[in-house]
């Protein structure tokens, strides 16, 4: 079935030309000299007052990176990146310190414009709130540094550590040293290794044993400066029985040149712990002709290290000129569970190559993958996923469902699943067709007097909402604004 007019209209509304976060904030910034060398790495490390071992770690990554070649297997096409013609560190000159009052008002206004009122939340913190109202602690990253983290005091009371990773390196070096690179090693892949060498900031979260994090944690990434790459590093650890829900959002100004965003996210879940990681990715996608936009080359991986642990990834991808990311779960602990829910929308000349990896190592591990891809304009949208059960992963279970929708005949939708079973008790099911899920429902709706098209729209909309519901409430609203789209005529 071709897309109905309504859907086409709604997709146009989120079209690349109407990117509303494309403004630039004019603030003074301090940058590392252009280019990338050992000196750049030393500069960043020195700027951050890092311990000696951290510099050694970075330099090892950098030397490793020099021997590596950029991967070409993804279904994306872009001009060669000149790694020497970019800034690897850019910080607003007035660095935020003790409280929000010291933050450059210009930056605060930027976040307000983006709908993230840092100041307001800080003020509201002291006010009595109605029971049960949800609050979000925000860590705002502006170019290379974290400018503000809200609700610090309250989180501290609960024992939760939530701070910029550069601060954590100084205050909790033992924790950072123990976990950094334990999920995504410095040798992992080209972009992750680059990140290990030059990452400037990002969030660090540690939830101690038995603690349920009292509020949603959120980081907002903003690339502002021209010609800079953003390399943030997020590390989240949930100790035994802990629970944390973490949200991530991102935007960038509209620029003609491509900017590189190569982040690394590492999650570690110990016994009975649960981490929920949600992303609404809305980097600048470039204009309708494919000029400019962010290259989003991200490595995200979660390690279900303990028994009965759970990691859940939810992502809504609407931005970036090129997306290259595969949030993955290593299901190491027995009875652990991994989930991946994704909606990826591409328009204009965007290229998306995204998916997940579920690596079943422990016994009785389960995983679930729900992926919805929508491509319009001249974009290409690829789902690439790996599900594998190793010899000892007895009773591994996986269910995968990936659907895609094409709007117009100049775009492409592709599905590349890898399913590897090395254990006879593993049960893997993979499906990529709408009819399988919805025939009964369609019949039911039609029997109630709806047209086939209306019925399809209703059923599939409901299904996408299931994915949306995985997002914490604050983000669900934002995401829904981005995708109020009816899906029909899906193809695998």
């Amino acid at each position, binding site marked *: *079935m*071709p*897309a109905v007019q309504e859907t086409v209209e709604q997709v146009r509304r989120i079209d690349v030309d109407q990117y509303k976060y494309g403004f630039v904030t004019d603030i003074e910034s301090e940058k590392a000299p252009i280019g990338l060398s050992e000196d750049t790495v030393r500069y960043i490390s020195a700027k951050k007052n890092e311990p000696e071992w951290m510099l050694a770690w970075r330099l090892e990554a950098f030397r490793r990176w020099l*021997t*590596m*070649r*950029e*991967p*070409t*297997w993804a279904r994306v096409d872009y001009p060669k990146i000149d790694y020497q013609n970019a800034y690897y560190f850019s910080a607003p000159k007035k660095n935020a310190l003790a409280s929000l009052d010291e933050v450059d008002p210009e930056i605060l206004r930027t976040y307000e414009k983006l709908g993230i009122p840092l100041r307001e939340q800080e003020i509201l913190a002291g006010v009595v709130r109605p029971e049960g109202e949800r609050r979000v602690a925000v860590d705002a990253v502006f170019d290379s540094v974290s400018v503000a983290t809200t609700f610090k005091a309250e989180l501290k009371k609960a024992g939760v550590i939530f701070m910029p990773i550069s601060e954590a390196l100084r205050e909790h070096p033992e924790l950072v040293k123990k976990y950094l690179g334990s999920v995504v090693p410095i*040798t992992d892949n*080209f972009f992750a290794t680059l990140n290990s060498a030059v990452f400037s900031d990002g969030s660090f979260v540690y939830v101690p044993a038995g603690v349920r994090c009292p509020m949603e944690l959120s980081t907002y990434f903003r690339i502002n400066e021209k010609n800079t790459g953003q390399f943030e590093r997020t590390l989240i650890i949930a100790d035994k029985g802990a629970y944390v829900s973490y949200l991530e959002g991102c935007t960038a100004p509209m620029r003609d040149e491509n900017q590189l965003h190569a982040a690394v996210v590492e999650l570690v879940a110990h016994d009975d712990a649960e981490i929920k990681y949600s992303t609404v990715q809305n980097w600048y996608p470039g204009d309708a002709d494919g000029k400019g936009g962010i290259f989003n080359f991200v490595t995200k991986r979660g390690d279900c290290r303990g028994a009965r642990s759970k990691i859940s990834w939810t992502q809504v991808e609407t931005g970036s000129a090129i997306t290259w990311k595969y949030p993955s779960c290593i299901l190491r602990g027995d009875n652990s569970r991994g989930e991946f829910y994704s909606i990826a929308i591409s328009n204009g000349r965007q290229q998306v190559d995204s998916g997940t990896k579920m690596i079943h190592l422990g016994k009785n591990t389960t995983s679930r993958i729900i992926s919805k891809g929508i491509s319009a304009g001249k974009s290409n949208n690829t789902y690439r996923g790996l599900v594998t059960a190793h*010899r000892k992963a007895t009773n591994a279970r996986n269910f995968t469902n990936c659907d*895609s929708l*094409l*709007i*117009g*005949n*100049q*775009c*492409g*939708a*592709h*599905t*590349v*699943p*890898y*399913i*590897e*079973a*090395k*254990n*006879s*008790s*593993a*049960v*893997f*099911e*993979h*499906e*990529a*067709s*709408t*009819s*399988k899920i919805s025939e009964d429902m369609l019949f039911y709706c039609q029997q109630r007097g709806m047209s086939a098209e209306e019925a399809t729209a209703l059923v599939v909309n409901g299904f996408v909402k299931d994915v949306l519901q995985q997002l914490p409430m604050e983000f669900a609203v934002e995401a829904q604004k981005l995708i109020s789209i009816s899906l029909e*005529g899906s*193809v*695998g």
Partner: protein
Amino acid sequence: MNVELRPVKTPAELALSASYADARARLPGKGAVAELREDAFRRFETRGLPHRRVEQWKYTDLRALLRDSYPLAALPDAAARAHAKNAGQVLTGVDRRRLVFVDGAFAPELSDLTEEEGLTIGSLADALAKADPLVMAHVGKVFATEDVGVALNTALMGDGAVIRIAAGVTPQRPIHLIFAAGSETPSSAFVRSLIVIEKGAKAAIIESHDGGDSQVNSALELVVGDDTQVDYVKITQGRALHIASLLATVGARAKFNSFAFTGDAALVRNQNFIRFAGENTKAAIRGVSLLRGRDHVDNTLLIEHAAPHCESREQFRSVLDGESHAVFQGKIVVQPHAQKTDAKMLTRALLLSDNAEADNKPELEIFADDVVCGHGATAGALDPGLKFYLMSRGISEKESEALLIEAFIDETIEEIAHEGIRDALKFAALKWLGSRG
């Protein structure tokens, strides 16, 4: 790490190059054919044998599996021909036209060459040598691919069948190409066949391979015309290292069915390159693989929908025992103008042992918006609930398992249109089950 320096050549690569250098002058065909061989050989020289970093060969690392390349097979002597006499027995009960190839060379004296109107049968070696126009028009042109397996075949192709079925003709019996190993010494054969089925013709083609310790690289170029009905069955058994490529173009309003049966075969790679070039064609590409011991069977498909309104169904099932390894890679490509394409792919692996490995990669690449495409993939063991049910009815465990496996395989074999072939393959599957330890 993504370092991709071309390593030192492996012994097998060196042996292949030596075979080509040595045989170049004697291989059939001059002029355009010789150029075709040169081109293909250069493709092999620059790329080397495919390895796990080559996406299409990810799970069948030929560079590691092919330790050494055997010398090209000599022309079969009387002993070899006698040895090959009983090949293709799996279809004994089926009334068919037998065409026998021993160590890759056509054996007319073992073949049934009774004349039939509208049916032309010849040897590829002869056709290449005398630059036969039909062969010159099609060889190397049916489906353009950069695949190294195909390139090696083109460079070293020796003999095979050339069959033409004229427009509107339906041959009386299925045509059975029997590729047998005759020689006792390890050798390699590069067989290439061309079958042209003209408008409105109806044909059933069977290709069977059974060999001992040999290396076979077989390719079949199949030109399926408009309004035809073609059933193609490939049966692969034996201990050979076997690489087979089907290169097919299917015309409009055709009914094309292909079935690949692989049982007790040591190392098989069946790669199918099929293009739907005309509208309203219906095709079914199916296969069943039975593996045990250290068998390795790889079914790889590239199905290209290049015309609107075509329907394709792909279904592959494998049963794995011992330490075997089954691979399925199916890629469906829908070109931008191929609207109303209806393609469905299903792959299922039944794992009977904890040491077996099943790798599935069903892939879709879609550039048209008004299509229905889908794929399903499952991997798992026998349903313990079903087994319990059967056992509670007094059936032994082993028998219950056999029944369930049979049911699993039959679902696909059932789809073969020709009754005789269907029954013969069912019997072969039962034999495999019966001998399961």
